């Protein structure tokens, strides 16, 4: 179903439909994350990917055109070859990865184990993801927050979001 909705994004000429398909794609991948037990990531995907970014895409469509540009199939051969090549390399690389759920995988044997063992003792909260995110990796999260802030300011500057939004002191 993920593949079907991804093809749908490309196939539909009407951009509104394409935006809806990408929303569906996000929801399906959120389901995939739930199945992989990554509930926090699924949460984020459902809220950001399916919710907010669909709205932003729709807002962009309102500002620009409603339909995709017509294109010839021959123009897309080179990008297609590039995509197939990259995908092939990625799949080749994944052949070396340990089996899904294997107990000897590096993710299960190194720092992950330490965090799982020491979180109840040192932090005392049940959600290990939050403990790692906010406490063990607090510095990273501070950086991330700063990045979100900077990105927001950048978008606002580009879109002119600051224009005319100051409190008007002189005009009352």
């Amino acid at each position: 179903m993920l593949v079907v909705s991804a093809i749908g994004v490309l196939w539909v000429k009407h951009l509104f439909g394409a935006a809806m398909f990408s929303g569906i794609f996000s929801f399906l991948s959120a389901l995939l994350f739930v199945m992989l037990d990554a509930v926090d990531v699924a949460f984020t995907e459902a809220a950001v990917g399916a919710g907010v970014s669909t709205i932003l895409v729709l807002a962009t469509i309102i500002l620009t055109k409603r339909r995709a540009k017509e294109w010839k199939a021959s123009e897309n051969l080179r990008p297609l070859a590039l995509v197939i090549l990259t995908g092939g390399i990625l799949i080749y690389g994944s052949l070396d990865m340990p089996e899904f759920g294997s107990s000897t995988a590096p993710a299960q044997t190194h720092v992950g184990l330490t965090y799982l063992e020491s979180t109840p003792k040192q932090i005392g909260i049940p959600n290990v993801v939050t403990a790692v995110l906010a406490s063990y990796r607090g510095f990273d999260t501070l950086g991330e927050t700063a990045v979100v802030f900077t990105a927001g300011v950048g978008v606002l500057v580009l879109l002119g979001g600051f224009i005319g939004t100051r409190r008007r002191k002189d005009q009352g």
Partner: protein
Amino acid sequence: MKHHLVLKVVTKIMVGFIILFALYVQFHGDYSPGGGFQAGVIFAAGFILYGLVMGLENVQRVLPPWIAHKLMALGVVIYTLVGIYSFFVGFNFLDYGALTPSHPEHGQHYGILLVELGVGITVAGVVISVYYAFASRSIKSQDEEW
């Protein structure tokens, strides 16, 4: 959107619950999935839904753009202040044990709560501001155009 009565009624009921859920995700992040980032996005989604259905002017009466802009910075400031505070009490930067030196574990709770609050405020501010910036540019569109 003058004639979408059902949408308006449903939105009025839903927005309260969405914001309540955002606060739950925010302050219950230690115990259940979620945290500041998700809570911020859900909080913003409540306002965006309200803005989509009721119109930009109405949502900006509730939360003017200049407040949304200040929120963006406020979150980062809260986060950094927690870190700087632990400096002055003699701990490492962002070592939450500093908040209650007698019982480091409690300090971790408070620290995570405060820091997640900072993240949530920044994310909510950014998402709402970006939505405002997009929505205030768009030409009034008619439903028939779609």
